[in-house]
């Protein structure tokens, strides 16, 4: 299956944020935006719902903490009891630093992997480059051309206040 997209290129972050809000008000479907750096406020302008990565992070963190705490209790009190300085076998304060570090490790690595997977950024994924200068100094907003009533001239008129540098239609295969 393939679909037609319209690639709109802007020169500044203010322009792409304004244009994204305008496009959404005008009822256009924004497929994605590509920018050289993270642009504050672009997610709100595009109407993207809040990220759910925080829950992934929480789940990974809890998993890491519980697994590591269980592992320490198992190794030092259950499988091979070790008396350290006469302290109780299950001495929670002694387990806290390692539990904390493993929790952070799981949460950090897990969240990054989940993000890469969800964004389809992994070896073998089909490249999605629409306009190369988005990785350099220009800001790209991609609209979907849903039906025959889509008119590029209307979009150009809509984006007139925002200094549209370049505009091209592409066909992408999925």
């Amino acid at each position, binding site marked *: 299956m393939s679909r037609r997209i319209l690639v709109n290129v802007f020169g500044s972050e203010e322009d792409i944020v304004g244009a994204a809000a305008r496009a959404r008000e005008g009822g256009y479907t924004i497929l994605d935006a590509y920018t050289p750096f993270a642009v504050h406020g672009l997610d709100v302008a595009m109407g993207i719902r809040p990220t759910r990565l925080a829950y992934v992070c929480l789940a990974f963190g809890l998993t890491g903490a519980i697994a590591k705490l269980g592992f320490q209790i198992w190794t030092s009190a259950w499988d091979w009891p070790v008396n350290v300085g006469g302290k109780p076998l299950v001495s929670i*304060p002694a387990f*806290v630093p390692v539990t904390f570090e493993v929790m952070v490790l799981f949460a950090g690595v897990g969240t990054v992997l989940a993000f890469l997977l969800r964004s389809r950024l992994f070896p073998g994924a089909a490249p999605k480059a629409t306009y190369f200068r988005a990785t350099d100094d220009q800001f790209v907003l991609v609209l979907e051309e849903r039906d025959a009533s889509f008119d590029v001239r209307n979009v150009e008129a809509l984006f007139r206040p925002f200094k549209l540098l370049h505009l091209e239609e592409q066909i992408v295969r999925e």
Partner: protein
Amino acid sequence: MLSHRSFRMTAPFRQSLLAVTGAGVVATCAGIVLSPDRTWPNLLLANTYLMSLALGGVLFVALQYVSHAGWATVIRRVPEAMTLALPVSGVVMILILFGIPSLYEWSHPSAVEHSHVLQAKAGWLNAPFFVIRTVAYIGLWIALSSLILRYSRAQDLDGSIDHTLRNRRVSASFIVVFAFTFTLASMDWIMSLQPHWYSTIFGVYNFSGLFLNALATITVVVILLRRRGYFGTAVTEAHLHDLGKLIFAFSTFWMYIWFSQYILIWYANIPEEVRFYTMRSGGGWLTLTIVNVLFNWLIPFVVLMPAWAKRSEGLLLRVCMIVMLGHWIDLFWMILPPFMKDGPTVSLWELAPMTAGICGFFLLTFTSLGKHKIFPVKDPYLGESLAQDH
């Protein structure tokens, strides 16, 4: 955007703050005469609290300058105003030096005579050197912070970028000087209350509490001013979000340092070190230990975790008040156990200095706020700060 009005305290508000502060000062003076052994440590506590707010204010401003940060420029006059408490608490700290015999065991020749440890420490812990150090810390802090404030306020008049550039250098010096002197000051003023005990992380621990409390107080003042419309539309939820993030981070940092100090001492289990914790792990002191961790870390950590909570003015205000109370508990927990072996008690001698300290702090801060423009109107970063609406 900058349709602001300058800050004015209403006369009744100012007078009631003045009256309560005055009553607190009078009661504290009475306490020094009637119950010196209880009042001196509480005066030290209240003054440390007051001073930590003032120092935290300077530190916040200095960090914005050295990191070239723009987000906080619209609220910078609040931490700047907090530093008016620095000279006041400096003077009170010098008055507290008269309480050395009531406060510090190492100042008693009979105690030193029977303790090898105190004899070994006498080169550092002796009254004349203690006085010299105290004056030196306070002098350095006042000198550097007044430079920062002077340049910041001079910029309101001429708008010259040189003030920003100069303040970057002064701020960098302040941060370095502060790191060393505050570590020593917290060891002198608080750690030496139990002169046989020592902890090398004590300075960092005190810094973490100081900065957490200063952030919470800045946020409280910002929210109070915002609710009364003094900031117009300039201070948005994005600024509250940023303050909330810092409070969340430094609350966790405080817990991290608290636990780092605890675990090394707990693990090594050396009698002269664990004494600090055994004094605080029985009866009422154990309750206070738990409440301390609850107020300074668990409540802020859990409540401020979601993004919407940091952007909610009401919720943030409540958490900040808990943190402000928590810092009092933290200092109470550090300072008072040697003077209250039977467990924490709160009477007039505990409340009077603290009431004077808190009301005096707000009186000084609001007075200072009224004297200058509520925004640094010609700061080159003001535009960036106003554009924070994400």
